[in-house]
């Protein structure tokens, strides 16, 4: 029963945050230098047209009124109109979302097993050559620009060896897997190092714990001790970090989609920035924030289920 109360409290905590992100995304568009209406109608429109459009979009209202209208529209699922595509932004996002989601899940599927494998290998051979190799490559991994890695891998595996397509999204499920392999891999190479470092040091910390000595003196086999006790206790901090990383991952897909021309949300965001399609930029920013909150929330809830001691 208490668990539900904790989760409920956590949900209540979200309300001010949701309010805050809506305010930030609203203010984003207010920051645009110049008149947004001019952008909408083009430079050659007459003053009367400008005034009419201004009134139609409620842009002649006081700022607070405008914000409330914006909030009201959001509640009805109306994210605004795209100037370039002449479509509701919500529709555009829904069109692009599956591709970005596919990419993100793909990245996660590569990231989790390799993180666990590398961290365990490094921790079990602490101080030996293999540990040094893994920790050193981790330092490198963090400093590599994703877009550069993407281009270089496209050149090597796509052009030189011809193993993978270097752009696009594919048509079938396996087509997607094939097309998105390099984008997913380059994003994963950037995520794995942080997680490996974290998990490795968590494991090393747990290895020193008293319960391990107790288990060992009780005669538990080392393998059992490691996988059933140490590893279980090391997962928590990495799980929390993983939540943060997934949020960062969505930011990462923006660049990766651009490099590999994957027609996803990030690609839409970039092209909208250049097309000065501000409502799309605004909506995508808001959307990414909502996704991030949801992921963090999910991770928090999973944490309480795994470890009842966790307080949110």
């Amino acid at each position, binding site marked *: 029963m208490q668990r539900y109360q904790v989760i409920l409290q956590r949900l209540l905590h979200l309300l*001010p*945050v949701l309010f*805050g*992100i809506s*305010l*930030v995304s609203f203010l*984003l*568009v207010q*920051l*645009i*230098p110049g008149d947004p209406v001019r952008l909408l109608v083009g430079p050659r429109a007459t003053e009367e047209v400008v005034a009419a459009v201004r009134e139609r979009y409620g842009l002649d209202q006081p700022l607070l009124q405008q914000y409330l209208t914006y909030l009201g529209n959001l509640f009805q699922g109306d994210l605004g109109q795209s100037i370039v595509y002449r479509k509701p932004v919500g529709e555009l996002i829904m069109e692009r979302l599956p591709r970005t989601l596919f990419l993100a899940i793909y990245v996660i599927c590569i990231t989790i097993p390799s993180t666990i494998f590398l961290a365990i290998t490094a921790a079990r051979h602490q101080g030996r050559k293999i540990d040094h190799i893994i920790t050193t490559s981790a*330092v*490198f991994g*963090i*400093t*590599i*620009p*994703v*877009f*550069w*890695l993407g*281009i*270089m891998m*496209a*050149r090597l595996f796509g*052009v030189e060896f011809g193993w993978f397509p270097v752009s696009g999204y594919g048509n079938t499920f396996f087509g997607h897997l094939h097309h998105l392999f390099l984008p997913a891999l380059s994003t994963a190479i950037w995520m794995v190092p942080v997680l490996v470092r974290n998990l490795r040091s968590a494991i090393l910390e747990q290895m020193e714990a008293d319960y391990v000595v107790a288990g060992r003196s009780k005669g538990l086999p080392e393998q059992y001790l490691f996988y059933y006790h140490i590893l279980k206790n090391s997962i928590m901090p990495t799980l929390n970090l993983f939540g943060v990383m997934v*949020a*960062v991952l*969505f*930011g*990462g897909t*923006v*660049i990766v989609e*651009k*490099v590999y021309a994957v027609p996803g949300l990030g690609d839409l*965001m*970039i092209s909208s*920035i*250049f097309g000065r399609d*501000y409502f799309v*930029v*605004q909506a*995508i*920013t808001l959307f*990414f*924030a909502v996704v*991030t*909150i949801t992921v963090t929330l999910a991770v928090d809830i999973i944490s309480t289920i795994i470890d009842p001691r966790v307080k949110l």
Partner: protein
Amino acid sequence: MSLRNLPTTLIVGAGIFLMWLVVALCSPLLMGTDPNALNFEALLQRPNINHLFGTDHLGRDILTRVIYAGRIDIWMGFAGVLPALIIGTLFGLMAGYFGGVVEAVLMRVTDVTVAFPFFVLVLAIVAVLGPGLTNFFIAIAAVGWVSYARLIRAEVLVVKNAEYVLAAKILGYHPLFIAFRHVLPNVLAPIIVYAMTDAVLVILFGASLGFLGLGVQPPTAEWGVMIANGQPYVTEAWWICLFPGLATVTLGLGFSLIGDGLAKHLRIKN
């Protein structure tokens, strides 16, 4: 304190960083004065004795450009980190030490800011302000200070109950004096370590924006911009992209290693 007592990572990292700094500062002496000099007789040349890193589609020397770009990218590291660090430290110190309204506001602002993926928010701010280095710095400072404030606040909460703070209070020092003179120096270490990781991130973001065409504007040499320039030619001329990328990695590595080394030296959990 002799050099021998310092962690190897710190020394190596500082070495890499100093090397870049010297090369960047002396670039006119090393490489001639014009990184944008065109040479239509040497288009897309492979690395050779005249052009150690090759040339690009306009015949510009890649090595010269990589070195000149170092100035901008190192500058990005500093100018991207420092404002966020200073603003964040001030807010975090006030929030942690005095609590009250400042703390309440800071916590709410933090909750909202971390709700956005960092890069997406920076990108959105640059999108509305317009492309360019100054707007990038504004965006990074506007979003980045929050992490510093949060970190400092957490440290201050621990330190403010220390005996020396109590002693200073009993001696009747002004609260602001205590906060800046006694508390601040004792919470700075983790911030410095974090700033090194942050510098790597900022440089990567700056280069990413340059790559997307929203940061430093061509023809100015910047590593991200150079990689974007080379992308259409990557099939026949891989060197245009390869070297600026390697440069980014080495500079990032320098900051990373300094951060790791400092953390080890100051016994901070990273």
